[in-house]
């Protein structure tokens, strides 16, 4: 490959990487928030305890991350009782599902561009 071809493909890769970076949702650049949405995308609802166990997070940190997702209307929260104990259930909203789909597509584009 000559210098012109090499420069052309490098510019194309940089353009693709820039497009990928633009497509990233700042809210989902935290891996636990992204992980929570991915887990919720596979079920109808999941409890706080189960999310904490799978994401290996502390109560305080996970609570803070989920609060941000709730404020962005990416997840819906439902507080219930189970065997007389309070349980908090989380489910993905349609906005959250769209945001997750966009984030994963942007990540895929970014990583493909990096291989050029």
């Amino acid at each position: 490959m000559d210098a012109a071809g090499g420069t052309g493909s490098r510019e194309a890769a940089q353009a693709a990487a820039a497009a990928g970076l633009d497509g990233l949702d700042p809210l989902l650049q935290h891996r636990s928030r992204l992980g929570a949405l991915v887990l919720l995308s596979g079920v109808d609802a999941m409890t706080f305890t189960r999310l904490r166990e799978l994401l290996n997070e502390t109560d305080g940190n996970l609570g803070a991350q989920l609060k941000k997702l709730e404020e962005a209307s990416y997840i819906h929260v439902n507080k219930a009782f189970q065997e007389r104990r309070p349980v908090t259930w989380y489910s993905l909203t349609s906005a959250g599902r769209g945001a997750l789909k966009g984030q994963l597509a942007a990540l895929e584009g970014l990583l493909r561009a990096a291989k050029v």
Partner: protein
Amino acid sequence: MDMSEAARDVAFVRGVVAKRDGARPRPSVIFYYWAVYVLIGFPMVNFLPQYSALFFGIGTLVGIVFSGITARLHFARVGEVDVGERIRGGIHWTMGMIVAVAVPIILANMKMISSDMAGQFSCILVGLVYLMAGIHIDRPFFWMGLLLIAGGTCLGLVPGYGWTVLGILLGVSLFATGLLGSASRPMGMACGGCGVEKAEKAAS
């Protein structure tokens, strides 16, 4: 975010999904019920054949209801609700077991097949139900399904105690699977179709 951070995030999420798929606690008591059902019912075919059809008929219906209620309570306690999976599993086991047990009994009552053939036929059909469960629900069922199909086919070759031997093998398999505790990912299943696998492939 740079490329390496993106790749690490994708790998992290993939790990989380694999952890969820690979370590879902199994509702063990359901396996214990069916182990007892098999350990009583199969030898009954050899030693008390006049009661076996009634036992299997009632035991299957009770087992289906018990399994459905127990599974729902179990996964609520685990912290996951997946209505679609529950419906698919419910239809699979309910329709499968009813057809596998009821149809041969009906055919035998209509004198279209002998009661011995009805028993073998039922065993093979239940094996198919288990085999499909191993592909779509929980891997150990696949091997139990093969055991039932092979066992049901060969029953006529083992004089006297074929059902008892098969019942013990299957009962022990069910009991051991219940003891193991964690469900295995079904055969051929990826991370749930969430899109993470595409992003990870791009990273590799």
